[in-house]
């Protein structure tokens, strides 16, 4: 590799050719401030439109200032990152950005997590010398995401996520000049757009322009209502990230503290979505085996590969983009939506609680779950199976609101019966986890043999698209895994073209899987955070006494007592769903 020598702020540095000034400076500990620049290194995600101009530096011999994030080093380059000229320009540019930004920090949902706020602090901006018109746009509230683009600074991170990473294409820059902003086509409501509510735009937005719809007030009201029995379920990925909101290191597992906090918040029953994840494996794994056996018997009608269906962002994606493939994914509901009817129709009935008096709250790393629980097919006479879905961030906020000192809480256990789960369930939060859990069960059910080594390391990792062939007692099973909808699209296009060699494919809408979900604490572009969360979930799995879903005693009991067997009529009624073609009418205004 060709090396380039240069000087930054008087310090010599030698870096590989094609390195940017920004990266070269970071190597020698000089952190040039950036705003629009964004990177998730281990996930190959990078945004560098060179738009904000905060990272400008002085390069000797160059007429104007250079954006450090997208200027490559050259041999003998002399860079100054904090000359008077640079500092004046950087501050003026920031003052300009602030002059077109609502000064609503006191009430902004992003306050404290806002990168623009941090930058203003870092550069010591004490006044905004430019007064003038502010760009104003319509506020848009969808079932999961609020767009308040008065706060947009045109960093284009959301656009990059939505178009390049997710290939959803709901957001892009519109208008010219001062009125330029990132918006939907024709500035229609997000709800009318092909948005999947994956929330990746929210997770990368540096300001409060994109935030989740906050349901915590509804939950507080339900908790305060003595007539209601309030049940909570927590998704696997939450326990690996919630601690970050309380100053703990990324990857800290806070399962016990989380349960304790929920109990102190006043939830009557603290259950685990992991239980429903084990149930999902029973249903989805059986469906896989069913399709596989029929296929092996020569049934030409059977659809393979089977696609996982536990990710609501992914479900929205194929409903919008691949309506012709709607019979390919598993019909199994997501764990959140399996939990709802089990809680209300099984657990509630057992206790004699009318479903109208039971409120099911889910804590999710996800924003699409907010939309999912509002879908009509998941309601009985208008009563949703899951009433409210809160993000990890909203839960953290609730805990703070209730004056609970999270870090000093004791570790407590989930309530039974819907709180018991296996190691297979907890890895649902990682990309590749669902299919690994499914294989643990499917292997034993198909071969009738005991699986000695439960870890399928070939299914783990962060590569965009992974594939592995597993040996089911002589039968090779081809598994495909994609995380990020852009990667999913590639696998889907193969399926559409009849070229797919896979028997089963796991798809997660968010890069990294649920641990990188749109409802998680902000990672601010540090992909180590995502890797540490993933490791935490595998650690949790490792420490579980039971690691296969079909061995969960409460699952066994549930089937014995209530459902019968997987894919039974009752299962179909409560645990399976169907999909809708959303490709048409996306662009039709009301």
């Amino acid at each position, binding site marked *: 590799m060709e090396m380039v020598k240069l000087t930054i702020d008087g310090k010599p540095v030698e870096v590989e050719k094609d390195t940017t000034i920004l990266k070269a400076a970071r190597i020698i500990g000089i952190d040039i401030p950036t705003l629009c620049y964004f990177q998730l290194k281990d996930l190959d995600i990078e945004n560098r439109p060179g738009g904000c*101009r905060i990272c400008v530096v002085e390069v000797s011999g160059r007429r104007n200032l250079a954006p450090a994030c997208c200027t490559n080093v050259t041999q003998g380059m002399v860079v100054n990152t904090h000359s008077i000229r640079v500092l004046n*320009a950087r501050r*003026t*540019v920031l003052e300009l*950005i602030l002059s077109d930004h609502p000064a609503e920090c006191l009430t902004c949902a992003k306050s404290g997590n806002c990168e623009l706020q941090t930058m203003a602090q870092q550069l010591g901006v004490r006044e905004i010398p430019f007064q003038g018109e502010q760009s104003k746009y319509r506020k848009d509230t969808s079932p999961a995401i609020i767009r308040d683009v008065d706060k947009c600074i045109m960093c284009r991170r959301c656009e990059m996520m939505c178009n390049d990473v997710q290939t959803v294409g709901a957001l892009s820059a519109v208008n010219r*000049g001062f009125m330029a902003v990132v918006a939907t086509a024709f500035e229609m409501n997000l709800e009318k757009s092909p948005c999947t509510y994956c929330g990746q735009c929210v997770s990368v937005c540096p300001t409060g322009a994109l935030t989740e719809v906050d349901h915590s007030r509804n939950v507080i009201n339900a908790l305060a209502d003595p007539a209601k029995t309030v049940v909570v379920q927590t998704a696997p990925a939450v326990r690996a990230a919630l601690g970050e909101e309380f100053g703990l290191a990324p990857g800290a597992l806070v399962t016990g503290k989380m349960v304790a906090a929920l109990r102190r918040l006043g939830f009557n029953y603290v259950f685990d979505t992991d239980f429903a994840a084990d149930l999902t494996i029973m249903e989805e794994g059986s469906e896989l085996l069913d399709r596989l056996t029929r296929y092996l018997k020569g049934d030409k009608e059977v659809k393979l590969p089977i696609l996982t269906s536990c990710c609501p962002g992914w479900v929205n994606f194929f409903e919008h983009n691949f309506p012709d493939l709607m019979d390919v994914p598993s019909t199994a509901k997501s764990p959140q939506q399996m939990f709802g009817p089990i809680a209300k129709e099984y657990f509630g009935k057992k206790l004699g609680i009318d479903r109208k008096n039971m409120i099911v709250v889910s804590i999710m790393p996800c924003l699409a779950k907010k939309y999912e629980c509002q879908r009509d097919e998941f309601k009985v006479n208008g009563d949703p199976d899951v009433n409210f879905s809160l993000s990890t961030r909203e839960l953290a906020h609730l805990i703070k609101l209730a004056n609970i000192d999270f870090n000093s809480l004791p570790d407590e256990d989930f309530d039974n019966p819907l709180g018991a789960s296996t190691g297979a369930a907890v890895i649902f939060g990682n990309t590749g986890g669902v299919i690994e859990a499914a294989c643990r069960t499917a292997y034993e059910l198909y071969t009738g043999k005991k699986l000695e080594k439960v870890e399928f390391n070939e299914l783990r990792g962060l590569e965009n698209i992974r594939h592995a062939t597993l040996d089911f007692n002589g039968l090779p099973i081809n598994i495909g895994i994609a995380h990020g909808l852009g990667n999913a699209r590639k696998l889907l296009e193969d399926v559409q073209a009849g070229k797919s060699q896979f028997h089963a494919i796991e798809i997660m809408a968010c890069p990294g899987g649920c641990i990188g979900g749109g409802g998680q604490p902000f990672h601010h572009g540090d992909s180590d955070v995502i890797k540490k969360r993933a490791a935490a979930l595998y650690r949790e799995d490792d420490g579980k006494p039971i690691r296969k879903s079909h061995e969960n005693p409460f699952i066994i009991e549930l089937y014995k007592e209530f459902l019968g067997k997987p894919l039974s009529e009752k299962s179909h009624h409560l645990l399976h769903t169907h999909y809708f073609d959303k490709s048409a009418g996306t662009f039709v205004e009301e």
Partner: protein
Amino acid sequence: MGKIKYHILVCVGTACQTAKSEEILKNFKELIKVKGLETEVQAIQTGCFGFCENGPIVKMMPDNTFYTKVTPEDCSEIIDEHIINGKKVDRLLYVSPETKESIGDSRHKGFHKKQIRIALRNCGFINPENIDEYIARYGYQALGKVLTELTPEATIEIIKKSGLRGRGGGGFPTGLKWEITRAVTSDKKYVVCNADEGDPGAFMDRSVLEGDPHTVLEAMAINGYCTGADQGVIYIRAEYPLAVERLKIAMKQAREYGLLGKDILGTGFNFDIEIRYGAGAFVCGEETALIHSMEGLRGEPTVKPPFPSESGFFGKPTNVNNVETYANIPPIIMKGSDWFSAIGTEKSKGTKVFALAGKINNVGLIEVPMGITLREVIYEIGGGIRNGRKFKAAQTGGPSGGMLTEKHLDTPIDYDNLIAAGSMMGSGGMIVMDEDDCMVGMAKFYLEFTVEESCGKCSPCRIGNKRLFETLEKITQGHAIAEDLDKLRNLSNVIKDTSLCGLGQTSPNPVLSSMDNFYHEYLEHVHNKKCRAGNCKSLMQYLIIAENCIGCTLCARNCPVDAIAGERKQAHLIDQEKCIKCGACMEKCKFNAIFIN
């Protein structure tokens, strides 16, 4: 009735007029009458010959004799000698300063015309919809020559040696650009013609495309041969329907003759061209934005490098040149680099087409050699300032350029001198302003354009230009304070220093240049709340002179906002809070009782 045999053409352009050309015309007319020549000789006035330093000019037809420095007293000698005796009046003939020879015929080469048409050589001469007329003018022979007789390297060498620089504004050496594109290895390359002309009031490229479309096609094919591209794309704004139509006709005819397509002129060279339309965004003239627009993406620039020559249209090496640049290529190939480089200045060769506009008599399209002075352009070609007003400034480079003032009148116009003067060549807009134009207002006009045309991608251009505009508005409304002037300058410098593309890097130029040259006007607006040109409405006051007002009420009845009050037969008063400065009252007043303060 016999036909007229002689015509006496008397120039009544501004310069000649000052030198009594009207009296000359009158004398000729009288003499013709007195001598009974009315049926044979006609004296008539004409526009400017562009030869003003030798005026007044009188031209005799049909023999094309050109008399210079004619006085009213010379008229009878011209009638007697030239018309009656058939002998030229030698003492009035133009004497070449170089050869000292008297030149009698206006078509003689010795008449150094101020304008030389290279890029516009066929405009207004051939029928643009007939390829035969282009071929008759040696069209496509430059292409034939390079394909049959020259290697790509040798052709690029000719372009390099000619000294041709990009006519779109930046002035990058054309030959070098071709060489860079040629040097990149790729399975596919493109040549692009940038016809996204967007400067307000500029239409040089449109005229070339409408008047001589084939020259662009021919030059693009030559470019393709040199750079190794077999595909050309013309990016043209959809607002140019006639240019598009003529390009399409030209492309069809060229294909029928085999001058585009496969195996051109039997040489095995393949090249064809397609058209892509722009929606008229100014920023799409920037080559990376242009390429994104051609790809169907949002027309906004990306950071260079990579330059289009390495990674352009669909990621392939792409050579982008402007229409006028292309129009210079065939003549350079045909006549050689030495011929071309003999025209112009040391570092700026050839000619430049300008769209001359503003307060000038002969608004129009001109093509002048590099190195011509502003004075020559304005007073000899442009026919001077309209209504005999005083020249104040000329804006070149459109919204990216700056103002040239009286002290620049004798500066030779070329790329480097214009930059040194705080302006730039730009694509060729030249707007002339007189003493009635407010320089703060001019800067505001250009900023308004830039605010509208910024793509909005980078913060300094998106927000900074808006704030510049707002500050200028404050100044012209009389609300600014001294500190605003410092802010204006600092912000201008930061925008130039930090913007992503050429649009933002140059957009504050009108502000900086007007501040450099007319700071006193800024100070007057800020401190004295006064606009010396009387352009800034907010700083104007319509007032009624009580002594002159007879109380006829006409003004009050015509005021659209009821700002005038007063009893009948008594002096009226204008409410300055309500007044919108429309001037209706002053127009209606029959007693000169209303004036502007």
